[in-house]
């Protein structure tokens, strides 16, 4: 099936070459980090995780969001999703590739990475995160590939894929739950120490993942002859709508608890993000833009007339996607570290080189995504959807 990926038109190759260039530049930037250490990042003693882990967390969500097409199709026989299920699964694969790369570029000693397997530590949440992330990646590759291959040969997918598909559902929930547990089980970090963190992560994941999938459907419609189906996109947009509303609701619950109880150890972080703390307010405009984007996106999606508007729908989805990225990417990680456990304020901003490496990882993910989507759309075109 892979031979499909090496046959493409000019646009396809231009895009691939563009991605390869970005990957190359990212790689050079990474080599410098590899030899000189994470000193090239904006991270510090007080803010010891930054842009890499933030993007990792966000993309775990995008990966988990794929399950929002799997559940309706496989559990509820929602036929309209037949065409896009594979897109959800392959989006999960590409996102997980990026997640794992972000973890690797964040390590101080990446060559010792396999120590996690050599000395398995079941008390550490990272151990479980490694298990579920790799498990979910493996499941999606196998399922996506086998189902697509069967479709190409116009036969039924092998029966053994069914249990794997069912297994992938708890895994999808699992990757984001365990990723939230990385943060919310730490006693000294008031911002993360909240039981709503995992549900909130899931809500924003189920908003950001399908929102991105809708945008991808637009791109597919524009560049291929395969039509994912307007009705499927409409159903997806309803999922995005309810998920982003749930995310905002969970956030407001958090705001209420934090401000009404007024416990300083919990309040200072939110105060820093939303209003600034002791004159430090680098993230304030970001956070407000993030929430406004999500809120406006939700309004667009909840009103049927706007949701069904062909031009407005991708705009609303982009708003939700970017809003969720700011909320979970920028705010969630920095917010936990500022102020520090000793209530010192050290602000964080990624360096240029850190951003270049990040873009390199994203380009790698998009390369995987492009190739997988090329396969999927071509096969679908061949068999006529």
């Amino acid at each position: 099936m892979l031979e499909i990926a090496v046959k493409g038109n000019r646009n396809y190759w231009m895009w691939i070459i563009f991605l390869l260039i970005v990957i190359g530049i990212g790689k050079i930037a990474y080599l410098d980090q590899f030899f000189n250490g994470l000193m090239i990042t904006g991270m510090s003693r007080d803010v010891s995780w930054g842009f890499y882990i933030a993007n990792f967390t966000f993309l775990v969500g995008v990966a988990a969001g794929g399950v929002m097409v799997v559940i309706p199709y496989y559990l509820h026989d929602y036929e309209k999703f037949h065409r896009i299920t594979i897109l959800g699964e392959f989006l999960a694969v590409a996102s997980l590739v990026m997640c794992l790369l972000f973890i690797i570029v964040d390590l101080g000693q990446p060559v010792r990475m396999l120590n996690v397997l050599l000395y398995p530590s079941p008390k550490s949440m990272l151990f479980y995160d490694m298990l579920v992330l790799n498990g979910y990646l493996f499941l999606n590759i196998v399922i996506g590939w086998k189902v697509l291959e069967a479709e190409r040969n116009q036969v039924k997918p092998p029966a053994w894929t069914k249990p794997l598909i069912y297994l992938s559902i708890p895994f999808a929930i699992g990757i984001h739950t365990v990723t939230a547990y990385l943060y919310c089980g730490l006693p000294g970090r008031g911002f993360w120490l909240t039981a709503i963190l995992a549900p909130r992560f899931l809500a924003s994941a189920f908003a950001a993942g399908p929102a991105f999938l809708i945008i991808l459907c637009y791109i597919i419609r524009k560049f291929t002859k395969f039509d994912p189906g307007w009705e499927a996109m409409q159903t997806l947009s309803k999922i995005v709508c309810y998920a982003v509303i749930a995310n905002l609701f969970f956030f407001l619950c958090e705001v209420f608890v934090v401000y009404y109880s007024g416990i300083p150890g919990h309040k200072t972080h939110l105060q820093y993000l939303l209003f600034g703390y002791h004159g430090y307010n680098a993230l304030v405009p970001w956070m407000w833009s993030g929430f406004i984007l999500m809120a406006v996106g939700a309004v667009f999606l909840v009103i049927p007339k706007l949701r069904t508007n062909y031009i407005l729908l991708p705009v609303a989805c982009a708003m939700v996607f970017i809003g969720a990225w700011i909320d979970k990417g920028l705010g969630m990680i920095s917010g936990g570290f500022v102020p520090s456990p000793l209530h010192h304020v050290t602000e964080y901003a990624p360096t240029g080189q850190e951003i270049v490496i990040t873009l390199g990882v994203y380009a790698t993910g998009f390369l995987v995504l492009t190739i997988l989507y090329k396969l999927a759309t071509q096969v679908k075109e061949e068999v006529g959807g």
Partner: protein
Amino acid sequence: MMEKSRRCFLKVAGIAAIGLGAAPAMNFAASDSHGSAAAEKAKSPDALHAERWGMAIIVKKLNDKIAKQITHACHTQHNVPDFTHEVDTQAFPNTRAVNHKQEIKWIWKEKFHYAFPDKEDEFLNEKFHHLPFMVTCNHCKNAPCVQACPTQATFKREDGIVVMDYHRCIGCRFCMAACPYGSRSFNFRDPRPFIAETDPDFPTRSKGVVEKCNLCAERLAKGEQPHCVEASEGAIVVGDLEDPESDVRKLLKEHYSIRRKQSLGTEPSVYYIV
């Protein structure tokens, strides 16, 4: 767990060595690198023991000069880099500019409201504003960093000291997120250009690993008191928390003491007598 597996390994290795009659060969190989490995493995008869090591800091005996002495003694003898140190450009050419926010510290002074942010008080006794509170790793009974570490590079010894294996650490910094006391530092860069004089008795670290206070485990093993205790002019006492007759326990019996963020349940082993 770490200790156990090491012991198991030694046992198995020992039996194997006897069985094969390879002991002399092994000793020979060992002596080739760093003197006699056998002698290093054996515990010194002078070694200090405790069921659970702990520390008491008598805050009123501290002043800025002593605080400086303590940090200096600990940092120089543990090869902790000092980013204000002028780099020898001949030995380390192309050393890049320093980001002081990426500093490394094991024990340092903080103001009261930073050391005890949950005990901040509008009407705090005046003298507390000026006293230097030395903060370091608390060697918690329930250490969140030990729990978080995905490779057991940070582990708890049977005597309560939380130590690190710098060669196993993958630099994920989960322990730094887990520590409620900000006691851990990460080597964002190679620390060696910033060590004025390398102490050959303690390893230097490489870039990409986390480090922190080890309660001078290497000195306790030789029957010596930790560097901070020696430099503190009586302000820091280290001893066995489980022994009612120990100096630490006697101090705690007689004086009111506080610990950092007690409400979190990590059970710090560092007590502040105020």
